[in-house]
């Protein structure tokens, strides 16, 4: 039993040496872990074993005493503070001005906080999509309308803005006769090809999963589900608003173009969104 500390410390020494060698020769994560654990563990086991074997383990009792100060102490303390303040008793005006100065300075010092950034409200209401611009994939390539079969789905951006965080759209083709949109919105589609914002109106995750048989777009973060055939109305999950629709058309060469920006601000809501 009393050999335990010696053995434990011995293991620790050997492991530390081994660790040094491992570092020297380039390192290896698993060996680093095992050897450091053995070195630390050896020290820990050794010290605790020493304590249990040889250090005094009798229980002692200590009086708690009183936490609160005595009445005398409290009185003395108050007297001290009040005696110090005494000369200022008649100087109300000066004290009020001091408080006013502190307050004014404090208020002024808040202003640099404004430099931390512009309020993004303007940027929140529009994306780089413009009328007549071609949509492109993440690689910057334009999209031929007839390259998308029924059930096909593609993520598209405005041309030149493939890194814009608010821009991505989901371009899907469904059977045209199944699309159930009001007439003005029907004009935003081409032969079953329809585009909605990919930014979930719940908390902003990309709505990346398309189930073609049911025409549902699913957001993997919190499982909000949107019905593509019915204007991307939410049918399950915490999203309360449909995905904004992007008006699209096909240009003379058969490429998909946007004919305007989204129907409303994309993504999650905020206080003055509407």
């Amino acid at each position, binding site marked *: 039993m009393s050999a335990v500390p010696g053995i434990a410390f011995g293991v620790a020494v050997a492991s530390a040496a081994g660790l040094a060698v491992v570092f020297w020769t380039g390192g290896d994560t698993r060996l680093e872990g095992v050897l450091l654990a053995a070195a630390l563990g050896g020290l*820990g086991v050794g010290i605790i074993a020493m304590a249990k074997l040889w*250090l005094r383990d009798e229980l*002692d009792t200590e009086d708690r005493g009183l936490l609160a100060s005595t009445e005398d102490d409290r009185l003395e303390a108050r007297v001290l503070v009040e005696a110090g303040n005494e000369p200022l008793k008649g100087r109300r005006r000066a004290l009020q001005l001091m408080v006013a100065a502190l307050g004014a300075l404090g208020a002024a010092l808040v202003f640099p906080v404004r430099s931390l950034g512009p309020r993004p409200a303007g*940027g929140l209401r529009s994306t780089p999509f413009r009328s007549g611009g071609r949509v492109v994939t993440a690689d910057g390539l334009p999209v031929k309308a007839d390259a998308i079969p029924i059930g096909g789905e593609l993520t598209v951006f405005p041309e030149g803005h493939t890194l814009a965080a608010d821009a991505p759209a989901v371009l899907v083709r469904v059977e045209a006769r199944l699309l159930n949109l009001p007439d003005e919105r029907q004009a935003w589609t081409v032969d079953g090809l329809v585009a909605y914002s990919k930014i979930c109106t719940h908390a902003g995750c*990309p709505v990346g999963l398309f189930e073609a048989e049911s025409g549902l777009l699913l957001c993997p973060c919190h499982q909000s589900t949107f019905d593509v055939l019915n204007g991307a109305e939410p049918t399950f999950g915490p999203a309360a608003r449909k995905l904004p629709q992007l008006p699209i058309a096909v240009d003379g060469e058969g490429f998909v173009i946007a004919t305007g920006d989204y129907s409303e601000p994309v993504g*999650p809501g905020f206080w003055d969104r509407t």
Partner: protein
Amino acid sequence: MTSRLVGWVDDRLGTARFTRRVLNKVFPDHWSFMLGEVAVYCFIVLVVTGTFLSFFYEASPQTTVYSGSYDPLTGVEVSRAYASALNLSFDVRAGLFIRQMHHWAAVVFVAVLSLHAARVFFTGAFRRPRELNWVIGASLLLLALVNGFTGYSLLDDQLSGTGLRIGYSVVLSVPVVGTWLVSLLLGGEFPGPDLLSRLFVLHIMIVPALITGAVMAHFVILIRQKHTQFPGPGRTETNVVGLRLWPTYAAKAVGLFFLTAAVLAALAGLVQINPIWLFGPYRVADVSAAAQPDWYMGWLEGAQRLMPPFEIHLFGYEIPNPFFPGVLLPAVTFLLLFAWPWIEARVSGDNTEHHLLDLPSDQPIRTALGVGAIAFYGILFLAGSTDVIAVWAHISVNVLVRILQVAVIVVPVAAALVTKRACRRRRQLRAAAMGPKVPT
């Protein structure tokens, strides 16, 4: 030689007086009192490993073409932040090991803090005169959560980037000032040019400074008030029975530090955590299924998934859905947590000093409420993984969500009722065993 040095210091600081007093202090010994200690040791490991990492990490969203040792990403355009994390993982000696030790320490830190908080709650150690320390402790839990989230979000990988986007939407949802708050944090619309560098400052400077200060205050108060103890032979409200700090308690404490660090080292070397090279760099239009945050965010994630599609629209203004599970729920949670000592004192009418701990069954109502709360947040944690559970259990995720929406109300109530009954039973049995002299 040492006595000369000690004499030199004492001549200038009078340390011997202090040493006499402190080394004699008595600390009660119970295994559950080690939880807070282990949390502090995790924090020490976090600071040491974190300092190493901070020498290599670049908090920059500027892009660069990756050209390090991890071949599958060679030639891919990534942020400098992500590239620096890959560099740490593959091209810095012991870099991956220290990164993993840091991440494991964070995960264990929050777990042990939660267990420690639960121990303090169920034994009533938050009662007068320790209300202030309870508030400091609750703040520490909150700070640990913040630092964990900001920490893993620095790496700009696909998984943590998705989490940041959700966080952004939650901040945006705050009524009236949401867009202002977002500009404070990001400098503009998501992702903003300053997000990573501001998270970095928060993570390595502001929050650790607050944690350090709070831990020191926590300790000073503990030493001033002396630790609580369980009732037992010779133990009263006016004494402390235990081990003297020197030598035995100090030796065991130091030993426990080494053991804690040893466990974290073993985890760091043998159990992979946060393999960011598999997630890929963050791309704003991409996401993958089974996206899970670090464990301690699970209750918030579950709340988002279970929340029905409810929004408030008033006079042209709106309070969007993520506000309720993302802001209101944690605000109420921490408010209740902070206020608990005063709530309990008011309801129980008990305003006396307590230095002897309760056994959980001594306080059926408090224990029942605590178990109910754990059940509530436990169900939220489960709900945070609905897609993972649905695949594993072969059930529809929609059905699972409905089940959990009901369970989150029913199960905590049932758990609380069962617990209250069990506590009362336990007390009766204990009183009967001790004989008629002891009042129940």
